[in-house]
Structures are given as C-alpha cells and as structure tokens.
C-alpha cells in the first residue's frame, strides 16, 4: 500500500524533471494492466488500450481477473485505482 502522508514542496528543477518523466511515461506503453472504476463497476484494461477487457460488478472480482490475465502472460504489473481513478496499489505478478 502506498503511504498517505503529505509534504509537497516542489522545486523548479523537480517540476522540470517530473514533466520530463511524464512525457516519457506518456509515450511508453508498459506491460501493465489497470483495474479502473467505471460508471457501472470495475474494468480491467491493458495500458494504452482504448477498450477494457471486461467490466465487473465488484473491484475484488476485477482484481482477481487481472491476476488471471497476468498469469496468462497478458501483463506483469497490475495497477489498481481507487473510485476517483487515483492509484491505490501496485501488484507485481510472478508467473
């Protein structure tokens, strides 16, 4: 689980480096699966894909299916989001 305390004081140099990192991340399609909230449930989606594999009623079920897909070689990292779309957990899957 990612820690939740706060302490933000970004220097100009940090901001520039964060922007550079973001530009690189935007261009890279990682071998990641995302579990994301949808209006009527939770979806499992490959990074960069415009369409989700499937939408599930519960987050638990979506996470389980993401693990199954990862076991089948469809991804190696599962990025789990919260109801607002923010990152809540990252799972590395070992095959």
């Amino acid at each position, binding site marked *: 689980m990612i*820690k939740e305390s706060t302490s933000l004081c*970004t220097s100009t140099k940090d901001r520039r480096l964060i*922007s550079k990192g*973001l530009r690189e991340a*935007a*261009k890279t399609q990682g071998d990641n699966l995302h579990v994301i909230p949808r209006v009527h449930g939770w979806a499992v989606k490959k990074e960069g894909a415009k369409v989700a594999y499937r939408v599930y009623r519960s987050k638990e079920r979506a996470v389980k299916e993401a693990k199954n897909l990862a076991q089948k070689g469809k991804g190696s990292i599962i990025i789990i*989001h919260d109801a607002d779309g923010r990152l809540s957990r990252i799972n590395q899957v070992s095959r």
Partner: protein
Amino acid sequence: MSFDDSVFINCPFDRKYKRLLHPLIFCCLYLGLEPKLSLLYDSGKSRLKNIIDLLKSCKYSIHDLSRMTSSKPHEFARFNMPFELGVDIGIKSYPGDELASKKCLVIDTEKYRYRISLSDLSGGDIASYGKRNQPEKLIKAVRDWLTNTKNPTQPAASEIFSEYVEFVADLQLQLMNFGYTRNDISNLTDSEYINYCKNWISARG
C-alpha cells in the same frame, strides 16, 4: 490561447472537489481547450473584475451548481457559482458577435434540483453527474456538450476517462519518484497540475 479555445471553469475550489476538478481539467485539455480558473489570475485586481475579464476571454464556460445547498447543519450554501453563471449569461447578451457566440454548460449532481433554488433557469437544460460524484460521468457530460457545441467528432467519454486514469497513475508514480506521497497529487497547485496534464497529453500525441 484564443477566445475560441478557452474554457472558464466556475466550481468550488476546496479539497473535496479536487476529485472532480482534476478530471474536469484533464478532459478540457484533452479536448483541446485551455482551462481558466479564477484562482490562477492577477490577485492585484478585484476578484469580480478578474472573473468578468476571464469570462469575456473564454468562448466556453462550465458552471457547477452542486454547492447551492449546504451539506451539514449551520453551513452556509455557496452563492459564488450561481452568481458567476448570472454574470456569464449577462456577458453573453452584450452587443457583439464574439460574446454572443459564448457557450455555457451548467452541471449539478442532480438534473432538476436547480428549478427549486434557481427557477430563472427553468426551460434551460443542465447536465447531471450523479450524487456519487463519479468522475467518468462528469467527463461524459463535458464531452457530450463539446460534441454538440465545438466539434462533433470527439473521442468517447470512456476513452478520455481511461486516458485520465493512466495519466494519474503516471503522475503519482513520478511524484513518488521524487519522494512525494500518494496524497500529494491533491496538494499540487492548479497551475502545476495543468502543466503536468499538458506535458503528458502533448507527448501522448
């Protein structure tokens, strides 16, 4: 950014609303609009003068009326948002082609609640994003409005939302690389957040 590509966002600026403000800003930028928030501009001018100048500089505006009721006992309702909507409607009726072409979207958590507290708007149509404050529904409301008013070939709301969550993950991971924490994304200033969105969206291509 020109008048035609700017959108004024009239909404609460508290921490609780950031969960909606961030996807709202991302959606506007993703669809080619420069968001303008009154908090970001000249503090040397009076707030109202700032708002009028901003409204005049934007063809598009989004007004969120969700705080027109108080959420707990002894809390005052907020009237800034409906007031700024009224100013916007007034500006739209100024003589001149450019201001007459202004387009505005009014949003709330419920579709017809405004008829009770702001009955002058009756007959108009407002968009709702639901009581559960779901970011994807808000993105859909904005995307559908811009499909009708700006460009009929916009990406689907689900696609914009998928891009938003990937951006958020990338931003949080970048911030964490610099020692920041999960909640620090909420503590970014709006101008920092807008700048990071622009960097990510432009690189996405």
